[in-house]
């Protein structure tokens, strides 16, 4: 819950359109939990684009007081972010939101990432690794090139199972289908809405449990504006709109109501 002018330490274009940005932000690094996000002011010198952009915390180095973001350039805000250079300041709000919880028992843990969905999951994998929990990581991408951070994830003590739409690497097809072949006891997921919906179906079918990280257009990022509504099911089965920025972005898979 900080407003920080963080210095950019590194801006790497990992693939055209995919950037990793490393910030010097000691307090944020100390506080951040996997699944939380930063509300980033991509262009503090202008009124258009007007709003901040939510970007997950991708990796944290508490020793060095560094926080990394991993993002895809899809519009004006992310393009402005990508234009920033080492040494520039970036105004960030956060860490915000409810992150992932640690796996409840000793069961098998899986992590399912679709495309840029690996962004918050990587930080989770860092934490799981630090807690000596080894996960099966299902990495999905359009094409082999976009299977990011495979070796780093292995290095953290996890097993990587790649899937690509075009079959250029690993399993050819949908990453959820790959995961569905031998589901685990607890699953973490992040990726496009359609992928998460089918992941939730698999989770339900196999009566296991999981947590998924959602996206919605955000205004404030702090729970004040009610813009980031996502339909959820309460204890008693009644539906309501929850705020992705405060009650999420991570939700127990069973809570999310898909339309």
């Amino acid at each position, binding site marked *: 819950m900080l407003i920080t002018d963080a210095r950019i330490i590194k801006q790497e274009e990992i693939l055209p359109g995919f950037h990793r940005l490393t910030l010097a932000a000691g307090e944020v690094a100390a506080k951040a939990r996997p699944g939380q996000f930063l509300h980033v002011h991509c262009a503090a010198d202008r009124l258009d684009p*007007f709003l901040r952009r939510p970007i997950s915390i991708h990796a944290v180095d508490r020793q060095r007081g560094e926080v990394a973001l991993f993002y895809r350039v899809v519009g004006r805000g992310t393009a402005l972010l990508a234009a920033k250079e080492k040494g520039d300041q970036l105004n960030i709000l956060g860490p915000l939101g409810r992150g992932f919880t640690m796996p409840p028992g000793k069961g098998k843990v899986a992590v399912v990432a679709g495309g840029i969905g690996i962004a918050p999951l990587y930080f989770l994998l860092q934490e799981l690794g630090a807690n000596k929990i080894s996960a099966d990581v299902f990495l999905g991408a359009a094409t082999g090139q976009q299977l990011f951070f495979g070796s780093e994830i292995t290095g953290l003590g996890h097993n990587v199972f790649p899937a690509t739409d075009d079959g250029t690497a690993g399993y050819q097809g949908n990453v959820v289908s790959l995961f569905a072949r031998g589901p685990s006891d607890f699953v973490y997921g992040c990726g496009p809405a359609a992928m998460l919906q089918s992941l939730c179906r698999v989770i339900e079918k196999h009566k296991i449990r999981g947590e998924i990280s959602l996206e919605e257009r955000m205004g404030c990022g702090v729970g004040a504006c009610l813009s980031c509504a996502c*339909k959820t099911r309460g204890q008693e089965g009644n539906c309501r709109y929850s705020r992705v920025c405060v009650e999420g972005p991570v939700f127990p898979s069973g809570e999310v109501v898909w339309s």
Partner: protein
Amino acid sequence: MTPAAGGMVNETKLKLAVHIGGITMKNPVATASGTFGFGAEYAPYIDLNQLGALVVKGITLQPRAGNAPPRLVETTAGILNAIGLQNPGVEEFVDKLLPGLAGYDLPVIVNIAGDTVQDYGRLAARLGQEKGVAGLEVNISCPNVKKGGLQFGSGPDMAAEVTRAVKSATDKPVIVKLSPNVTSIVAVAEKVAGAGADALSMINTLLGMAIDIKTRLPILGNVVGGLSGPAVRPVAVRAVWQVYQAVGLPIIGMGGIVTAADAIEFILAGAGAVAIGAANFVNPRATMDVLAGIKQYMIENGVQDINELIGAAHS
């Protein structure tokens, strides 16, 4: 009126307090309803006690689920929202949220909205009993709900009827919030004033929409939404200017305020206080930054009392 010649101003004695229809604000900077939650959301970022007033999210008699997402889309230098008055209802508000604000030293203004004229009266009667409520802001201008909302704000007579219903149900100061989506905001303001409103606030959002050219469908779940942010400021300043000229009531001005300069523009146009809306999303400390900038302007321009600036552009 020509500006004072930047003279002797005692910085420690700047007079910032303003009076809005019976509510005394220690400074002219308030929050705009729906953009600041119920205060607690921003307590980690600013000291709420420093605010002139806290205006909370619109409250209805019954809880409201709100509209289907997407509820927000960014436009050029603005945002369209279609929240649809999601709120826990007046009872839960009074039970769970209002007590949390009792500890703060600031007027809490509750924004109310109804489906019927009776709803407004009932809300006023219920909230009128609460010590923690300094005043009511009557939202007759929400473009994001199917029933009520804008329909009450667009006809001067209907607006007056709602005002009367609220006034007769409570002794608390009543601020009526006007819509810019009308042929004559002055006509509505005059009728509302005649019906006994203690103050006016303006503007609520402009009715707008956006279409996704990839899907070829409206972006918002509710199809249309309310435009706010810097893009609308000239429309809001004009509304304040016109109403100040025609009607004697105090005005809370809002619409696109981001900086102190923006706020001062509203005050010169005739606003006795200002409210910060969408700018909070970008800068959680926007209210405090605006307040600091107003003080600086006063010092630099030799203005000892903020009240000297209200309406000063009407030469």
